[in-house]
């Protein structure tokens, strides 16, 4: 898919995210909006997957380690045809398959159940290691968040992936600089962040995570690298697309009310 199509899908899915969260009355808009452009590029440009055959063993895997941002993933899965779009509005309701955080038992198209931060990268590492061991050709993509990088387990996984030369593993770090209760820099700074990953022997890249051209190029480049996993540090804006949410920790874990939701949708639709 070309860039103008990806842009149009991202716009549509931003609206879906707002509608889902408004209907649910709770959830995490900020980090869902910051990562949606990357998720759209993965699902509609990069990854090999077959919505009509979701269990296809050769599919590329996507692990959303920042599980609280699963509305972005649900929106992409529905758009790709995994399940009907109407189901999106059941988010967080009793008996829904669309749990507040990913539950792969209820919704089998999710590769991992996440929601406790810090664990997804290890699971992705395991999938990549299995791929190498079984000589399978799939690639594994893992999306992690910045606050999440404060968790020690992330660095345990970071240490292990280069040891096993997992060039089939590509991590996208959604660097929106805000976590639950404030700026990452104030709570527990990660800087110098790119240098940390580099020091752990990763192939590293740094891009604007809202620039589709840059996202595509970095994913293509990552696929060419041999003998090392890749980390793409994606500079993003928390709440991207809705001015009153952008860069605000207050919109980390709060759903818009009906009026705020409507204003958000209008603004998303009005942006170029």
């Amino acid at each position, binding site marked *: 898919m070309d860039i103008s199509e990806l842009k149009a899908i991202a716009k549509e899915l931003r609206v879906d995210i707002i509608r889902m969260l408004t209907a649910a009355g*709770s959830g995490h808009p900020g980090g869902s909006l910051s990562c949606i452009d990357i998720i759209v590029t993965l699902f509609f440009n990069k990854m090999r997957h077959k919505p009509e055959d979701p269990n296809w063993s050769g599919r590329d895997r996507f692990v959303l380690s920042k599980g609280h941002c699963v509305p972005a993933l649900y929106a992409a899965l529905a758009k790709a045809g995994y399940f009907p779009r109407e189901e999106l509005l059941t988010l967080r309701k009793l008996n829904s398959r669309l749990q*507040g955080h990913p539950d792969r038992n209820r919704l089998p198209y999710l590769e991992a159940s996440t929601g406790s931060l810090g664990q997804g990268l290890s699971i992705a590492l395991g999938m990549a290691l299995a791929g190498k061991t079984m000589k399978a050709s799939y690639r594994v993509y893992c999306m992690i968040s910045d606050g999440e990088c404060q968790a020690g387990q992330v660095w345990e996984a970071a240490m292990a992936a280069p040891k096993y030369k997992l060039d089939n593993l590509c991590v996208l770090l959604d660097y929106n600089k805000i976590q639950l209760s404030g700026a990452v820099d104030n709570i527990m700074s990660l800087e110098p962040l790119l240098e940390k990953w580099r020091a752990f022997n990763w192939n590293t890249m740094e891009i604007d995570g809202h620039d589709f051209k840059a996202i595509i190029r970095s994913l293509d480049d990552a696929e060419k690298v041999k003998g090392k996993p890749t980390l793409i540090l994606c500079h993003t804006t928390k709440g991207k697309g809705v001015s009153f949410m952008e860069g605000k920790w207050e919109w980390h874990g709060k759903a818009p009310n009906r009026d705020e939701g409507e204003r958000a949708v209008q603004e998303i639709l009005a942006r170029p």
Partner: protein
Amino acid sequence: MAAKATRVAFGEALARLGGENPRIVVLDADLSKSTMSDYFASKYPERFFDMGIAEGNMVGTGAGMALAGMIPFICSFSCFVTGRFEQIRMSIGYSRANVKIVGTHSGIGIGPDGYSQMAIEDIALMRSLPNMVVIQPADGVETERAVEYIVRHNGPVFLRLTRQGVEDINPPDYQFRFGEGVILRPGKNVTLMATGGVIGNTLKAAAILAGKGVDAQVVNIHTLKPIDRKLIAQIGRSHGRIVTVEDHGITGGLGSAVSEVVAELGRGRVKRVAVEDYGESGDAEGLYRKYGLSEENIAARALELLQD
């Protein structure tokens, strides 16, 4: 009758006690605005430490501060802090470090966030450590008194708190008696023993039972460890029928604690009302109905116990 969440009462009490005891320090893991430790943080910023989303390190740091003579409260959602069990067993339990572990957002009652944020194994885990005290207060005033007690208690404590509001069940002049169950309603046919946020539904169940001619006693168990053996023995000597009620998994919580004592004494029978699966997203009321914590189900289980 204010419906105050016990995490709010905790935050207020801690902020007050911080002024009285300079050895109190508070650690949190990017959830201070949810655990309500930020009340303390804004009054005593020099004694508050946000450790980031790194609960394992918070456990160890808390242990170190305790071993250096301070009284650390380490706070997070209960699933995340008690989930660092290995660090807790070594650095706090085995090291006999005077750390107060505060787990908020316990149980399926948190609602829409779903299982990943629900602690329903935390009582089981913490109860398994020999020197760990486990307390779950039922309302605002009990939380305040319990926090005061915890500061005085020398040794590790796990304090389990709710996200959602809970009705006041105790009088304003309530006295907290460590290790003792509180009889909220007298009754001679069956005892409903509950802990934490489900006490409201348990009292309603007693009312349903009264309508069917069953006189149910209701007991609030705020101290899960050590459990009130004396009270359980006393019930064993009278009608001997206990229904336990908790927003926690069926294994290892209040029901297990009571059953262990009943089995050892060889007197009485127990039915456990608790969560029997992983939780899920939903509204709290709907979840309580689906997972058997509604007043109707509690009453039905009590009737079963009376009939067998």
